């Protein structure tokens, strides 16, 4: 009887254990976010994901370059031409419920930049778990992603002024009070970006190699910082009572700093000088076209040399890939959809800086 009891107990136990195991299956090839941050090969995908939110200004349908009067004359495009977003905005077809080029909402050709911010946070929280990366490499990648975070935030501020800073990462189980955050003051947003950038710059490499061209290095980071400080100092953001004097939050406080602060110009100027110094030290300079002009232009060159030279300098600045004036090239070109190709630099900023 005792033997029988023991046997029954053993059978029950075995069944219970195996049953638990049996029920605990996970479908094959299940990939979790943690698995991405396991080896360097996969972690590259995470870095690529974080970079992906850079707006695709190279694509005619998604570019902000069509936000100009010169495109309106195309009478062969009617108002139902859905994909030329910039042109739709210029035709007065911007929409509240599905914004064209909505970087906040991620609608109608706009990259969802808040997803970009969260993606960056996920990256920063997990990249330390990668097993086969050197500490220095991880630090460098982290610095790049911090720069991306700052850059996405800058794009948001540029489009929307005061924005939400989701400093605590939203989770699927988050409750409304954690999700619906107030918009921050513009100056707070700038400070948040600058903190990130100042943290990141020392950890970046000075100049990336040709194989990684398009990644953020110190030259790029300092140019971005200079641009952000330049925007912050400009009359649009700096003490703009005319536009934003009555733009108040729920507590009646202005979203934009309404007092003009000349020291913002000083900060901007310092950052710009720093950016120029490092860029020039790495062989960057204003673009000069030095090769032979195209055959069909040679005639014009002999007749009108100076003007043609200027024309070539300006044209080839855009068309000559990875030229010496390009600070940060947009490298994520769309191989698979070349009809919409424009191939533009993200920032021809060096020229802007030298111009004044």
């Amino acid at each position, binding site marked *: 009887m005792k033997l029988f009891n023991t046997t029954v107990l053993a059978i029950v136990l075995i069944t219970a254990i195996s049953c638990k195991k049996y029920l605990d299956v*996970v*479908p094959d090839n*299940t*990939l*979790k*976010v943690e*698995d991405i941050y396991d080896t360097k090969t*996969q972690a*590259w*995908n*995470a*870095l*690529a*994901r974080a*970079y*992906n939110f*850079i707006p*695709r200004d190279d694509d005619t349908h998604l570019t902000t370059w069509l936000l100009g009067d010169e495109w309106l004359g195309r009478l062969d495009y*009617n*108002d*139902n031409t*859905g994909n030329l977003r910039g042109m739709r905005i210029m035709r007065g*077809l911007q*929409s*509240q*419920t599905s914004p064209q080029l909505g970087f*906040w909402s991620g609608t109608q050709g706009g990259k*969802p930049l*808040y*997803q*970009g*911010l*969260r*993606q960056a*946070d996920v990256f920063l929280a997990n990249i330390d778990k990668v097993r086969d990366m050197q500490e220095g490499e991880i630090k460098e990648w982290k610095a790049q992603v911090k720069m991306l975070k700052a850059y996405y935030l800058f794009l948001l501020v540029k489009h929307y002024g005061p924005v*939400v800073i*989701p400093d605590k*990462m*939203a989770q*699927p*189980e*988050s409750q*409304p009070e954690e*999700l*619906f*955050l107030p918009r921050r003051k513009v100056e707070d947003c700038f400070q948040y970006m600058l903190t990130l950038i100042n943290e990141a710059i020392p950890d970046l490499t000075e100049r990336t190699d*040709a*194989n*990684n*061209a*398009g*990644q953020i290095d110190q030259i790029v980071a300092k140019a971005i910082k200079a641009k952000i400080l330049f925007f912050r100092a400009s009359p649009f953001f700096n003490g703009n009572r005319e536009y934003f004097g009555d733009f108040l939050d729920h507590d009646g406080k202005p979203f934009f700093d309404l007092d003009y602060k000349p020291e913002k110009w000083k900060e901007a100027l310092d950052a710009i000088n720093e950016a120029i110094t490092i860029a020039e030290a790495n062989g960057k300079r204003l673009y000069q076209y030095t090769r032979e002009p195209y055959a069909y232009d040679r005639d014009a060159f002999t007749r009108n040399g100076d003007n043609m030279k200027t024309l070539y300098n300006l044209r080839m600045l855009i068309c000559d*890939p*990875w030229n010496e004036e390009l600070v940060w090239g947009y*490298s*994520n*070109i769309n*191989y*698979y*959809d070349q009809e919409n190709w424009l191939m533009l630099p993200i920032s021809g900023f060096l020229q802007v800086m030298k111009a004044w």
Partner: protein
Amino acid sequence: MGTIEECDQYVQIERFLGLVGNDAIAGRADRFYFLSDVSLPGGASVINSGYRWGTSFMNSYAGYVINRYANPDITWEQSEKINLGLDMNFMRESLKFILDFYQDRRSRIYMRRENFPATSGLEAPISGNVGEVLSKGFESSLDYTKTFGDLWLSARANFTYATNKFVKLDERNFPDQYLKRLGANINQQWGLIAERLFVDEQEIRNSPKQDFGGYLAGDIKYKDVNGDGIVNSNDRVALGFPQVPEIQYGFGISSAYKMFDFAFFFNGSARVSFFIDATAASSNDRAGIAPFANRRNALQIIGDDYWSETNPNVHAFWPRLSTFPVDNNIQQSSWWLRDGSFLRLKSVELGYSLRKLKRFGIKEGSRFYLSTENPLVFSSFKLWDPEMRDKGLGYPTNRRFNAGIQLTF
């Protein structure tokens, strides 16, 4: 007291209370919804989820995509059922009446959580056990069978009423209360209120802007419900009845008199609405009636009654003609809303039995008959069969007429 079988008439009341769980709460693809679902798309997805670097653009990674976030707290749905049945028999069971009330409060329904702002940065829709629906209704049927000498008669009728409403759901905190689905039927549709067609450009300039692409004179003019000077999806209100009928009923008679037999059956539904599909037809599932689009011809009704510059009827059936569907006009709106209720004569059959042909070797059960299916339908909607609902150019319900001889050897 005798047994129930011996009773001439009786009434029986049944009652049922129950708590039922349901774990089949999501589609097959979502079976492991407590786990996250991450995929590495590879290849051409570089542009959508990855990035490439390098002066020759060869250092490329396709990134990863989150299709679903892990949700370890997911649990099953629960449904609290109350049934109350009434079963009545009169006249030795020749008259039967059954009435069945039910109420089903289904809670913890696994559904989409809508109330996430874009600023949360979550890239996949979030679902959870957040819904609760209260369904109520009754089913009833009446049967009567009687023989009067040579005449045998059987009449039957049924009537079903079913309705439901959201008691709880995670929806956006709309400033306009009429956009909320809370308290509405789960099949309720929202749409714009169409006033009429625009008369001219002058009127367009002086009306609230409509946010559905370009529009001209002869296109549908909508009402700016919240009065914010722009007509967009925030101006949609609950329109008409639910898409699924709340009332369904049927009735019919079978009878036999000497050698003849005769039967008919009606069925119908009520408290249901549908929207005419004004998009371009591309398949049986998307069988819209837009003329000229996809090289389609125009329906007669469009040819007879459309807006044109020479005949600018602002209440015409079809707005301004175009070779492609005008986005402004194909919005779900009261312009295309129709009452979907109908009463249909489902079948009629008349037969004559051949009992006197035994000497030819033909047995009982042989008969001549005439029958028809779907011969008549009564509805306020006349353009096509109301049971086809929105799909005007879909495959229609058949009307059939049969004449036959049935022989049993």
